[in-house]
């Protein structure tokens, strides 16, 4: 029995309990709070140890051939993501008000699935847990989305088909990986065994590139990598608030986690083969520049946030494309930072929609006067996603940029480095759309827009928690980096 199993099981059991009739709010809140504490303690324990390699491992064999077992284990990356998941889950569940129990159940399932995906070390279960988390996402968009039934069903279908297709490609890639790296006579799904085999008998670069590309397409469409992104914006804009928070904040990170955790260690040369790298750079520039412009064009807050979330994925992919230790750690920090900040923004956005009934910029204005606390919280999220130093996103972004310049020769710029410079322009663009949004919603005379007051303090707590996380890890990014002492 490992503590990680408790962490995975707790939300799922809570969901079961609510389904069986336990009081939804109290149960889910208690379970998530407890889970957050356990994750925190575990993280501190891990940091207290050497903070390298897998810890808290435990394995329950299920099948002998192919060798399949329910194996858990965590290193710094998984713990950071587990922390992200529990934080966002707590905030998402806390901010639910006057909703049927299915909101709580689905939040718990999404969070539990994500935790399972992040904390298991068996490729089969990593995949399966992610799929488990996707199902409630689709259902909630289709059943309780913020749009006309026909439209929300269409959006849910679009997301389902996209993510389903992405998952299929991913499955093919994973199967390929398992076949290539199993070694010996038995197939194995154990990530550690696969990694060891990959170290022992690395594939030829050309083959690594092919497999990596398949995995990139699979994982990438789960992360809304350009051009497989068009599900994301409508899905987030339509999804109920807790689902938008959890999916954009946590579940979307699964694809990136998979790339860092599965694809890169097994296929270290994959992203560096020229055609793959160029393709990846082009796609991530699509994310940053194209989606940046699309975001500038948005006229509604939910549109802006949803598109900006797609755009910011480009920076994380940039970290993966750079592939150096600094850049990869930066990518992990940015995953954490983006998860917290976008969950904060979507949470506040949902609250605004509940109170005001609309998110059109031309109907809003001057909210800062009567809702100052709300404004400050929103500012934390907005400025975090702009990449203001002192909030976590900056640390991640700067590490990615720096990591891309580690092998720089004066006077010779590689494609990667040109991409970084173009990506830096994206930082300007994100300031443009975020400040426009902020200006339109909060600045101006209070008479120019709809009226709204601050939520009660207890309802502010989840957002305060997220904002504080941004501030603390933003001023002290070494808190996160100390969890990743060994090279990724």
């Amino acid at each position, binding site marked *: 029995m490992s503590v990680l199993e408790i962490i995975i099981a707790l939300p799922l059991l809570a969901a079961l309990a609510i389904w069986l009739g336990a009081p939804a709010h109290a149960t889910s809140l208690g379970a998530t709070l407890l889970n957050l504490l356990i994750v925190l303690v575990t993280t501190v324990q891990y940091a207290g140890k050497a903070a390298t390699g897998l810890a808290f491992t435990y394995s329950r064999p299920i099948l002998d051939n192919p060798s399949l077992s329910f194996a858990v284990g965590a290193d710094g990356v998984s713990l950071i993501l587990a922390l992200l998941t529990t934080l966002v889950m707590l905030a998402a569940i806390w901010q639910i008000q006057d909703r049927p129990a299915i909101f709580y159940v689905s939040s718990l399932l999404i969070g539990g699935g994500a935790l399972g995906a992040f904390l298991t070390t068996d490729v089969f279960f990593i995949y399966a847990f992610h799929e488990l988390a996707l199902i409630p996402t689709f259902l909630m968009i289709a059943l309780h989305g913020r749009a006309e039934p026909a439209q929300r069903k269409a959006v849910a279908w*679009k997301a389902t088909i996209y993510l389903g297709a992405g998952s299929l490609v991913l499955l093919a890639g994973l199967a390929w990986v398992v076949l290539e790296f199993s070694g010996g006579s038995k197939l194995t799904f154990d990530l550690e065994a696969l990694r060891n085999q990959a170290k022992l008998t690395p594939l030829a670069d050309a083959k690594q590139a092919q497999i990596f590309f398949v995995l990139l397409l699979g994982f990438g469409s789960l992360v809304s990598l350009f051009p497989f*992104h068009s599900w994301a914006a409508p899905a987030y804009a339509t999804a109920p608030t807790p689902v938008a928070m959890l999916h954009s904040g946590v579940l979307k990170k699964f694809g990136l986690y998979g790339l860092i955790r599965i694809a890169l260690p097994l296929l270290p040369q994959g992203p560096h083969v020229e055609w793959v790298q160029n393709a990846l750079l082009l796609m991530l520039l699509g994310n940053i520049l194209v989606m940046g412009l699309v975001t500038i064009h948005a006229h509604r807050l939910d549109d802006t946030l949803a598109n900006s979330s797609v755009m910011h994925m480009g920076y994380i992919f940039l970290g993966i494309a750079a592939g150096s230790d600094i850049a990869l750690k930066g990518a992990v920090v940015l995953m954490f930072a983006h998860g917290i900040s976008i969950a904060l923004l979507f949470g506040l956005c949902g609250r605004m929609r509940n109170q005001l009934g609309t998110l059109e910029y031309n109907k809003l204005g001057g909210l800062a006067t009567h809702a100052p606390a709300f404004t400050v919280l929103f500012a934390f999220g907005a400025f975090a996603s702009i990449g203001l130093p002192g909030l976590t996103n900056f640390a991640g972004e*700067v590490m990615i940029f*720096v990591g891309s310049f*580690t092998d*720089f020769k*004066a006077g010779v710029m590689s494609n990667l*480095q040109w991409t970084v410079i173009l990506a830096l322009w994206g930082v300007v663009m994100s300031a443009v759309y975020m400040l426009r949004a902020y200006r339109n919603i909060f600045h101006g005379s209070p008479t120019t827009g709809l009226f709204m007051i601050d939520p009660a303090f207890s309802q502010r707590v989840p957002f305060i928690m997220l904002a504080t996380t941004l501030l603390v890890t933003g001023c002290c990014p*070494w808190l996160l980096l100390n969890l990743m002492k060994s090279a990724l």
Partner: protein
Amino acid sequence: MPASIILLLPFFSALVILLGHRQLKGAAVLISVGSSIIAFLASLVFLATDDDNKLLLPFIDVAHFHAGIDVLIDKQSRGMMFIVSFIGMLVHIFSLGYMKDDEAKPRFFGALSLFMFSMTGIVLAGNLIMMFIFWELVGLSSYLLIGHWYQKASAAEACKKAFLTNRIGDFGFMIGILLLLGANAGNVNLLDLKTAFESGPLRPEAPGYSAGFTTVAALCIFLGAVGKSAQFPLHVWLPDAMEGPTPVSALIHAATMVAAGVYMLVRVSFLVAASPLAAEIIAGIGCITALMAALMATQQNDIKRVLAYSTLSQLGYMVMAVGAVAMAAKHGHGPEAPDPGHPAMFHLYTHAFFKAMLFLGSGAVIYACHHEQDIWKMGGLRKHMPVTFYTFAIGTAALMGFPWLTSGFYSKEAVLDAAFNSGWRVLFIGGAVTAALTAFYMTRLLIVAFMGKPRTDSAHHAQEAPMVMILPLTILAIFSIFSAWDGFANSLQALKPSHINAPGEGHTVLIASLIALIAGAGGAIFLYRGKDKDPVSIKLFANKFYFDEIYAVIVRVCQDRVAWIVTALERVFVDGIIARLPSAIVARLGAATRMLQGGHLQGYTFLLGGGVIAVIYLVVFVLPRMGN
């Protein structure tokens, strides 16, 4: 120790005010003002500390990339620290009076503390990453303070504009940092970079040296300064920034933050010196800014805008001096012995005092005239507000460079000296013309606002400002006169160049600046004495060379229109090819196969018959042959 007090005290002050400004109410103000006073005292102690470069707080520490909050203490930072904390303290005190009736006082003082924290960070920064961090944070505090009266649409737009324009500068700054970081193996510590450029792998004799790279890196870093110090072509945000409360304009948009760009350039002067081309471009941009802003200032009617354009112009002076010094060193016109002083820093130092004073003085005027800012609606204030008038007059004299008496004279001479020695005569001529224009518009301002008769009721009923506002004005007025004296300048570590008006050069510079002063001031007296409305009207200057309009078009075309097109293309192509095309194909196939299942019994029978025939055909004719 004093360094960490000066740095962290305002941070905690800002944090406390952010967390509890509802509970604290008036106490928030006290916390902020108190922290600024303590920081000022600490900066006095700091003046006596030794040179040092030590790590204060960790930040990022991965592989060979170390970016911490590390403090570089040397003469530059000690002197700058004094300016920042001294003027910061005075502005805090002035704001006690100016913002007395403001509802959002705690927010104002919280942001002011945040600014003090970030500005201190820039001053103390020992590496470029830390510089960038606080660079952005001053941008944030400037955003918050310009947008203090965010209910006003103009203020809301102005703070957004300021932040975004600075972002463009920071884009270049970040690229520059990355280039240097890549070239110097992940190390952007200022001292290490200096060593690398002077004797390390980046020196011109080193293998693999690329002059183009050095120039590009220097220009990228300079772009950061262009944004923050509002140089042409990114100068448009500074005049609009006057939407903020006047004390803020004095502290941030005149004395300290906008000078951060100059300070940063002086910090990386080894980089500017390494690239002659970059030095020329920097000097040129500075000269253009100085001249252009002075021209615009001559036709402004808003008292704060006149001062804002004058700030722009003086910042242009400083930037020009940075470039000119580097150029002079290359041409061999520089002083033989390395001069510890720097004309740009020296001008920054004197300018900080008198410009802050002018802004605070204008604040006192605006306060007395019930927030009237149009100088043509003032007049005759000399009698009603004598202290303000005399301090304002001293500030004006200093800004014009009134010879021998005022501090501004010496620093301006230093700048013109540097321009004279740069090898580009045009820099010197531009500087002299700017000096004449400065004298012109400042005299105009003084005559129209303070002399003559009151033109409106609010000017008629104006009263002298309260003590908390007078006191900082007086102190700053004293500094405006004496700060260039050797005793002051040396104890405040002001980087005063040792060779101002060195006898060997003849008196070209001195004579030129005297002529400029007399011509400018005389022209203004001749034109504006006793006038009730502006006798001169030059649309081009009044409308700031139409920069705002041009930029508005650029933003609309290059950004919003492109965004619109890209969005449309994204919908049509990406969504079309990736999502709608497959779905259309699937739908078409589905429709085709549906036709087969129309529910017509006879159709089924026909298919059945066809199927049977096909099977028989296969079994009888095809399969036996394949068997063989």
